[in-house]
């Protein structure tokens, strides 16, 4: 807990999640007091095993929780100095926060161009066509694929999902497992583009990942979540050099702990809290 308590004190963060608890269906508690900060212009990653509550944290931020009978019962979420935990999903998007949901979730019976146009739904300015060109610059492959988006490959669909997020001209993008189901080569490509977008556009990113290796390297700061709590956080360097992170998330650690004989110790150490 001590590591959590000593939070990085910088200027006021763009997004700040404070002690948030989330309950689904009025009985199932998924988040048990999650706190995290995302400073402006940075990439922050949120790691953890299946069922830790990473996606729930993102949905609490983006307001999509309400579409799944989930509710923020305690704590608050502030984005650009404004409380967003009670807002509807569409109002959160309008305030400049865009979530790319897990599993890409593109509109499969529309073309990729129509998907991109939908990304700009909340905008009323005249620069939408310009931005479509910008997305094509990041993802030249999308321009060639004029058919239905449902026929795109997994990697192309992920690119389309990220491109669609860019079309909203958000201040911040929450990415839920962009590497899911992609080949290692594509994962590398997607992460490179995420870093590039962050640098070029100054878009702040909160990146939920299972692929810890890539995610930590792409990020400035990271949080690790288990069973609905943040159990560890630190800068990229701190996380990469942490023995527990190495062992549980990066598949490294010293040989002794990896061996079968020490399985008991592994099991005991498997959870921080």
């Amino acid at each position, binding site marked *: 807990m001590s590591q959590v308590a000593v939070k990085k004190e910088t200027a006021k963060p763009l997004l700040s999640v404070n002690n948030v608890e989330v309950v689904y269906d009025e009985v199932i508690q998924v988040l048990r007091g999650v706190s995290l900060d995302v400073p402006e212009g940075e990439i922050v990653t949120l790691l953890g095993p299946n069922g830790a509550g990473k996606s729930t944290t993102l949905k609490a931020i983006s307001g999509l929780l309400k*579409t799944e009978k989930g509710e923020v019962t305690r704590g608050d979420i502030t984005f650009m100095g404004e409380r967003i935990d009670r807002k509807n999903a569409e109002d959160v998007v309008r305030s400049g926060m865009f979530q790319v949901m897990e599993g890409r979730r593109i509109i499969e019976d529309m073309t990729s161009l129509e998907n991109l146009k939908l990304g700009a739904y909340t905008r009323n300015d005249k620069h939408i066509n310009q931005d479509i060109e910008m997305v094509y610059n990041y993802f030249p492959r999308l321009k060639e694929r004029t058919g239905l988006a449902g026929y795109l490959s997994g990697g192309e669909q992920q690119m389309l999902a990220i491109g669609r997020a860019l079309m909203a001209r958000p201040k911040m993008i929450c990415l839920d497992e962009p590497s899911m189901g992609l080949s290692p080569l594509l994962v590398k490509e997607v992460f490179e583009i995420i870093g590039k977008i962050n640098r070029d556009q100054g878009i702040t990113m909160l990146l939920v990942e299972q692929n810890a290796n890539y995610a930590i390297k792409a990020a400035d700061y990271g949080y690790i979540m288990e069973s609905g709590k943040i159990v560890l956080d630190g800068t990229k360097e701190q996380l990469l050099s942490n023995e527990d992170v190495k062992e549980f998330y990066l598949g490294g650690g010293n040989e002794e702990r990896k061996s079968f004989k020490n399985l008991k110790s592994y099991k005991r150490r498997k959870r921080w809290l």
Partner: protein
Amino acid sequence: MNFELLIQLIINGLIVGLLYGVVAMCFVLVYKSTQVVNFAQGEFLLIGAWVCWAFLIYAELPFIVGFFLTLFFMAGFGVLLQMIVLRPMIGEPIISVIMITIGLSMFFQSLMKWIFGVDPQSYPQVFETQSFEIYGLNVEVAYLMSTGIALLIMVAFFLFFKYSKHGLAMRATAFDQQVAQSLGISVKSVFAMSWGIAATVSATAGIVIGLVNGVSDSLSVMGIKVFPAVILGGLDSIIGAIVGGLIIGVLENVAEFFDSQYFHIGNMYDIAPFYVLLIILWFKPYGLFGTKDIERI
């Protein structure tokens, strides 16, 4: 065999079929974007036709003014109906929602009878010429106008759903409501919009039919006639709705022709579409263009 009469009837069928297609399209629009089976679809035609009639007769407005006023009225009517009656039903079992729309249908039919009486009324003369001849075929101006309006509505639907921001948003909502919300689309306003559009467009069809046949209770029968068309085409296909409408329109006229010439069973005009519906559903349970996994009702 009287070929000239047959051709005339087929053309009539196509003209009426286009209107069926328009109404069926509205039905599909509401079903696709809000998952509501609207049994009160026919009442939209009825209300639209009566309201326009009232504008022309009581307020003595010129036809075009009354027509557009009716469209505005119906847009608001559809939106309010969704907001007040159907919004609280979101997430309720489909059977409850169906009961609600059947109730609405009865309510509005009775309401129209209460306000405007039970006698059919005819519209004032709108066109100067009634009909003219092309290649020996008798063409009524009203029919020509109805065809023009139906085609115009179909093209407008196509452009709206292909290019406009709100059309795309409606398609996105029909595909996946959660994704739509994540894009900043308000699902509530999409629902209201689709009811507004369905009411407005159906009212247009109601007025067009009213111009030809007069306004009466039989307009709401269109709501039932549209069922064979919609189910024939597949509940969730807009193209299917148009094709289904045309098939039903031609079918009832051809059936009537053969019946009057040879079989003399009577009343084939109304019954034939439903026979064909049965046969088609026998072989293609999801309709001609329907998606396989849609819910049966």
